[in-house]
């Protein structure tokens, strides 16, 4: 074993404290160390050129570079070493500048410490094994799950970069939540109009395959090469033929609760999800249509002016798509308000969720945009209860972030639509972050018809309903009791993971956080990546956020896909990963339980764990956890670390 040591002087940064001559003598006595050379600045162009040239001449088996922090230069020197034809992982750096020279006062101590470190490095590097970066072919196509603001933005951005996108949406229409809101906070812009340009582009974009009424059924594979099965429910209307005239709808004899309006009105068995909803084609609800009860009703088909647009024999399809990456943008749901019996949701007809109220405000909603109670009368007073479940350690221990803003929006819309109506805000805290949001807050609090009552605990609010009216009894934060009468009560439930998130998380083996949202790779630095390579997160499926933040995250996710999985390039697999010594593996699966990246699979036939190098991030947690010592980490093996420990302590 021939080890070469290169000692960077870093000008005088290192030599001021550490005399290389003192170190040289010691180093040359270390096992395997064949030579010791000083370089003035090894990171300079001349320094690197010298290193490469010298390595080619000396042909050492291993290299130790004593210089500055490996955090800054390990990659650079690995490249130099590789250029000289030596495996880049046959090099070990010693951090003499940051962790010895700059922080040790006594030169004797500094030289001793430097010598220890070099001994540790030489002992370690002699045990290094050659490692190779592997490369795999990458499929450039992308699956986007969810066609709300985040998913649409991501799909469009990637399609513009010539990627083929499969856009899977479970509902019959695109746009997610904003297209169901009449106006958006903070500037009361029209919701559907805001998304219209994005939707129009998505519909025209040939690179995007739009799959409505669809969901992910199966996922196999890994980053760069997923095989996804998509289950598409029959629409019974051929989108490419339908002209969206709606002639089919009126003749339909069946009425059923309209889930797109939260059940506040009825729709026909053949219906648009929403007037103006895109794609502009109705769907047949097989759970309501007479044909699926055995009757041969053809009224819709008979009314349709286009041949072949209504397709009764449409069937469920399983579509297979090969994609390199997946973007999850499945959105969120609302906390179940019936968990608060005192708020009378579901019992009193005058209590609504914010989503139901949004639909009452919408021109496409059950009342055509008129604020009317279930009795058909406009309310004279409304109570808005903030933080229903949010900021509550027994329910949802976080601020949902958007509720105050939409409550202020409600306040302003009520002021415009019903100028005489009184508005009572029952709030725990009030938030208005951002450069535009405070203005809406000011307008809402400046509304002379509005009263803001701060409560301390949601338990202090009790709603009783009678004759389409509610009485809200409360105790405010100062302990004062009171009551108001409201014709309409609007609850602002916490934003929670969408229904089906758990199922999707299981399919994709993507971790969820303690609240059930898809867990980001890093809360601050990497919120658009999941903990699984190749699976990215956008919008409220990762955590509560507003439309702006959702769209931004959609772009961020698209950016990750485009930069991490560039078309035509192969994906490099970092060699510093865990690996299993299968003979020693007892099959206890402890490694699987501690891996944060689901990178460890289990071979049931052999009864051993296996690491998927593509998914492994190389943290070594499984190595430390393995009770049999069967798990090892490349470049951080027990043997290598033991050697380093022994070396630095001698």
């Amino acid at each position, binding site marked *: 074993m021939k080890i070469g040591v290169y000692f960077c002087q870093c000008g005088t940064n290192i030599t001021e404290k550490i005399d290389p001559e003192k170190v040289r003598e010691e180093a040359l006595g270390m096992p395997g160390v064949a030579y010791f050379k000083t370089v003035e600045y090894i990171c300079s162009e001349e320094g690197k050129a010298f290193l490469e040239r010298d390595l080619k001449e000396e042909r050492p088996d291993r290299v130790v570079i004593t210089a500055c*922090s*490996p*955090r800054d230069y390990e990659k650079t020197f690995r490249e130099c070493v590789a250029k000289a034809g030596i495996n880049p992982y046959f090099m070990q750096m010693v*951090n003499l*500048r*940051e*962790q*010895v020279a*700059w*922080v*040790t*006062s*006594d030169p004797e*101590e*500094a030289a*001793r*410490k430097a010598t*220890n*470190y070099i001994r*540790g490095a030489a002992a370690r590097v002699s045990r290094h094994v050659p490692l190779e970066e592997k490369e795999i072919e990458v499929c450039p196509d992308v699956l986007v799950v969810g066609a709300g603001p985040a998913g649409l933005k991501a799909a469009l951005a990637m399609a513009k970069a010539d990627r083929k996108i499969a856009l899977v949406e479970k509902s019959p229409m695109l746009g997610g939540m904003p297209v169901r809101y009449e106006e958006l906070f903070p500037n009361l812009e029209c919701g559907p109009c805001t998304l219209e340009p994005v939707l129009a582009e998505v519909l025209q974009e040939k690179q995007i395959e739009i799959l409505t009424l669809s969901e992910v059924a199966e996922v196999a594979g890994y980053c760069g090469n997923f095989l996804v099965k998509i289950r598409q429910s029959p629409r019974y209307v051929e989108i490419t033929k339908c002209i969206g005239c709606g002639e089919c709808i009126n003749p339909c004899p069946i009425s059923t609760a309209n889930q797109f309006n939260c059940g506040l009105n009825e729709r026909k068995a053949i219906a648009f999800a929403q007037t103006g909803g895109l794609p502009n084609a109705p769907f047949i609800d097989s759970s309501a249509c007479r044909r699926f009860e055995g009757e041969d009703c053809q009224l819709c088909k008979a009314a349709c002016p286009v041949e072949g647009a209504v397709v009764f024999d449409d069937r469920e399809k399983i579509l297979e798509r090969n994609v390199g990456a997946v973007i999850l943008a499945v959105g969120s749901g609302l906390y179940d308000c019936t968990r608060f019996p005192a708020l009378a949701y579901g019992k009193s007809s005058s209590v609504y969720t914010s989503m139901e109220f949004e639909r009452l405000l919408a021109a496409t909603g059950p009342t055509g945009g008129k604020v009317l109670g279930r009795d058909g009368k406009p309310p004279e007073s409304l109570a808005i209860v903030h933080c229903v479940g949010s900021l509550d350690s027994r329910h949802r221990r976080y601020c949902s972030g958007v509720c105050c803003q939409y409550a202020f929006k409600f306040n302003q819309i009520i002021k415009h639509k019903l100028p005489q109506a009184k508005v009572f805000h029952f709030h725990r805290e009030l938030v208005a972050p951002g450069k535009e949001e405070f203005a809406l807050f000011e307008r809402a609090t400046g509304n002379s018809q509005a009263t803001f009552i701060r409560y301390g605990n949601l338990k202090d609010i009790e709603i009783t309903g009678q004759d389409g009216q509610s009485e809200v009894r409360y105790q405010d934060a100062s302990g004062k009791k009171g009551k108001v009468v409201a014709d309409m009560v609007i609850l602002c439930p916490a934003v929670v993971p969408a229904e089906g998130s758990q199922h999707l998380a299981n399919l994709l083996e993507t971790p969820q956080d303690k609240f059930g949202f898809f*867990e980001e*790779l*890093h*809360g601050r630095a990497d919120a658009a990546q999941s*903990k699984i390579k190749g699976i990215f997160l956008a919008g409220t499926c990762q955590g509560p956020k507003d439309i702006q933040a959702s769209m931004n995250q959609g772009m961020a996710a698209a950016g990750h896909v485009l930069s991490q999985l560039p078309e035509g390039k192969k994906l490099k697999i970092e060699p*510093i990963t865990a690996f299993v010594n299968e003979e020693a593996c007892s099959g206890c699966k402890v490694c699987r339980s*501690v891996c*944060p990246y689901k990178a460890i699979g289990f071979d049931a036939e052999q009864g051993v764990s296996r690491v998927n190098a593509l998914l492994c*991030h*190389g*943290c*070594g*947690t499984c*190595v*430390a*956890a393995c009770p049999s010592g069967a798990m090892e*980490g490349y470049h*951080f093996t*027990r043997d290598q*670390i*033991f050697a*380093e*420990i*022994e070396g*630095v*302590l*001698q």
Partner: protein
Amino acid sequence: MTQQVKETGRENGFEPKIVGFLCNWCSYAGADKASLAQTPYPPNVRVVRVMCSGRVDPQLVLQAYKKGADGVLILACHFGDCHYKEGNFRATQRHRMLLKLLKQQGIDEERCRFDYVSAGEGEKFVQVVTEMTDTIKRLGPLRRKCV
């Protein structure tokens, strides 16, 4: 260990050997950060870099004692900051278990310190290293037959 031995440890110029297992992303970066002030700190800690504090299994710590360390430092990211999300949490669990093991072997708990140093906490790194060096000086050399 008796008070007398402890005092001797401090007086005879004993320079402890301490192995510091530092995670690459936070604590090692914190140690680098400490150098920017260029204020000297005790030279007794020998840093062994690992990718994550979650890699530090009891064997590594025991090996350090066996090979001459009088003390061991395990430095990790703060909770919530772990580059690998929860490796530091696993590390704290293992450290708790390790302390029990050390006790059985007659090794003072204070000889194995777990702490959190972020990439920005250069001063905290210096503080931890200084305190640990003082602690081990007070405790005196580890009697190797323990290990």
